[in-house]
């Protein structure tokens, strides 16, 4: 099916009252949790996973994508008005955005962030619609050996390439792989890594791990370092862009979107890199007339570009997720596990076997984008009020939802104990600067990689050289190896030649 037909089909399904309702609910929820510091889309979607038992796949995924996009919009509000970025993609937005807010220009900063997010979200979603089928076409030619190599590449990029240390990233990844191994091996029926505890035969639940990492660990860390501080929410003012603001924003929006999307599509994940690049690009390209505003009173270009890059990268992450079944962010990994709970096999066949679902989803992303601009501009007062929820009640509430989400899995106290144990590990991970996203990705992608590996080895009759003799497979592995050691070698070489 080509993209235009697909989109027409998608919109015809997405524009029903029920599906519009799911999109609206998702956008609303997503913006709210994006605004709240300490809550993210990965945690929210994990807590909403039980919905997969009672709602159709289409409805659930429209909801999840609304949450995913909404959180990106909401995150910018927090970083501009509080100067505390809620997630890694909005760190750069806080740089200039908070400065603008301090100088009474919070309104234009919020407006350029919201409209920029809309522009980038639309560009990114168009990218998904037109790039998706092309990637699928290529992906259908891949066998299990190539798939396994692709997953290795994905593991390397999400853990070792991004972040401050390859060693710590890999430690997180392997912790996730270990958690993913617990339970019955689905090919031989053997119990693995269960320590003889019968409750572990079903494996460690994804929801439990996500909640432990993103809610319990975060709360414990906050308590560990607790010191009473007063947070100031800066006033919003008028939410208007002047003619001059428009002129200054359009370029950064488009450049940011163009920069962000490819970064999201590559199995490198992450929004830090494109937002940072966009910031430096805008700083270089800015009209000399306004150059002095960077770092002083806050330049609108420095908000418009990175915010667009952030949203376009987030949209890009959906391309490998939908076309290859490869999650490159924690949120995408949890969405992938939702596919599995519907019994849908993620991967290139998704576009043919579940064409209705995929195209409805893509159409809903366009709709969600429109809803989000509307929700974010006139309703900004509501989000500011959410921002003012005091920390004690906010974190106490987060733990209530953490408890119910975990206890609801099997009504077992053992799950709660496991939740707190992994939460304590997560607290120390935060202290020692271990990234948490690779844990979730390793846990969900690990079992899929093992399956692909064993399939490939069955086809090759146990010959391990299959991964390095098939040309596509070996090329992917070489890229993975370069991505792993390349930056270190380059760094060492640079240091030597500098001496």
């Amino acid at each position, binding site marked *: 099916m080509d993209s235009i037909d697909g989109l027409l089909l998608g919109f015809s399904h997405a524009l029903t009252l029920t599906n519009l309702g799911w999109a609206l609910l998702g956008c609303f929820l997503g913006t709210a949790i994006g605004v709240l510091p300490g809550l993210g889309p990965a945690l929210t979607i994990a807590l*909403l996973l*039980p919905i997969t*038992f*009672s709602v159709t796949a289409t409805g659930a995924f429209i909801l999840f994508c609304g949450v995913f996009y909404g959180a990106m919009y909401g995150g910018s509000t927090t970083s501009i008005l509080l100067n505390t970025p809620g997630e890694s993609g909005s760190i750069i937005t806080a740089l200039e955005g908070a400065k603008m807010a301090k100088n009474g220009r919070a309104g234009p900063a919020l407006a350029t962030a919201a409209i920029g997010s809309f522009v980038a979200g639309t560009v990114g979603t168009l990218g998904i619609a037109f790039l998706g089928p092309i990637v699928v076409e290529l992906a259908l030619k891949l066998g299990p050996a190539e798939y396994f190599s692709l997953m290795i590449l994905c593991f390397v990029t999400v853990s070792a390439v991004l972040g401050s*240390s390859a*060693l*710590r990233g890999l*430690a997180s990844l*392997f*912790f996730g*792989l*270990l958690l993913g*191994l617990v339970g019955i*091996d689905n*090919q*031989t029926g*053997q119990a*693995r*890594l*269960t*320590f003889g505890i019968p409750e572990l035969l079903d494996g460690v639940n994804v929801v439990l791990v996500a909640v432990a990492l993103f809610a319990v660990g975060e*709360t414990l860390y*906050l*308590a*560990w*370092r*607790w*010191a*009473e501080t007063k947070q100031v929410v800066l006033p919003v003012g008028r939410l208007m862009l002047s003619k001059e603001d428009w002129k200054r924003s359009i370029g950064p929006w488009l450049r940011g979107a163009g920069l962000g999307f490819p970064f999201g599509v590559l199995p490198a994940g992450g929004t830090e890199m494109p937002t940072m690049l966009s910031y430096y690009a805008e700083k270089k390209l800015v009209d000399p007339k306004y150059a002095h505003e960077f770092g002083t009173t806050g330049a609108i270009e420095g908000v418009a570009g990175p915010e667009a890059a952030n949203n376009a990268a987030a949209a890009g992450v959906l391309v490998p997720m939908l076309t290859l079944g490869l999650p490159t962010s924690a949120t995408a990994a949890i969405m992938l596990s939702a596919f599995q709970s519907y019994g849908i096999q993620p991967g290139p066949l998704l576009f043919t076997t579940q064409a209705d679902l995929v195209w409805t989803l893509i159409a809903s992303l366009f709709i969600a984008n429109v809803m989000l601009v509307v929700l974010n501009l006139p309703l900004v007062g509501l989000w500011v009020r959410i921002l003012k929820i005091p920390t*004690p*009640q906010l*974190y*106490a*509430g987060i*733990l*209530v*939802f953490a*408890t*119910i*989400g975990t*206890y*609801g899995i099997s*009504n077992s*106290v053992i799950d*709660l*104990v496991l939740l*707190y144990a992994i939460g304590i590990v997560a607290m*120390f991970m935060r*202290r*020692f*600067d*271990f990234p948490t996203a690779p844990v979730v990705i390793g846990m969900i992608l*690990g079992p899929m990689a*093992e399956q692909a*590996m*064993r399939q490939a*080895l*069955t086809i090759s*009759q*146990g010959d391990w050289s299959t991964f390095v003799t098939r040309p596509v497979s070996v090329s992917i592995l070489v890229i993975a190896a370069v991505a792993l050691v390349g930056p270190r070698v380059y760094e060492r070489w640079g240091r030597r030649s500098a001496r």
Partner: protein
Amino acid sequence: MTRARAYGPDLGAGLFVLLLGALALWQAAAIQSSPLYAQVGPRAVPYGVAAGLVLIGVGLVVVALRGGWSSEMEEVVEAPPTAWRSLAYLGAGLIANVALIEWLGFVLAATVQFVLVCAAFGSRHLLRDLGIGLAVTVAAYLFFARVLGVSIGAGILEGLI
């Protein structure tokens, strides 16, 4: 170059990863391998993951012995001292929840937890937190049990809602 001194906390983190790897090796060795699956048995990947963890653990220990990585991190240097009082209240909240949830049900156990967590973060309004906590837990219960259709088990207040 002078040899930097080992950094204790980072050494602990490295040793923990090493311990995790050792546990994984022990559990991988305990997996029963049936001779029917001669190609790749259920043990290959667990052994690989365990070996990976051991190697990474060794790597982290070596880095820690050379001075570690986190002693100069901004977040660690500027961090306020450990808030034992907050941690104690939070810990009490989590333990109370585990201890009470089967006995009193989710709503009451989570309300107790809510009040203790609020106290952990400096709230001094016990009655107000109790009221908010009850409202939040009941709302969470209604959403999960009625809207999402999740079974949250029985409890004293759950029967009345």
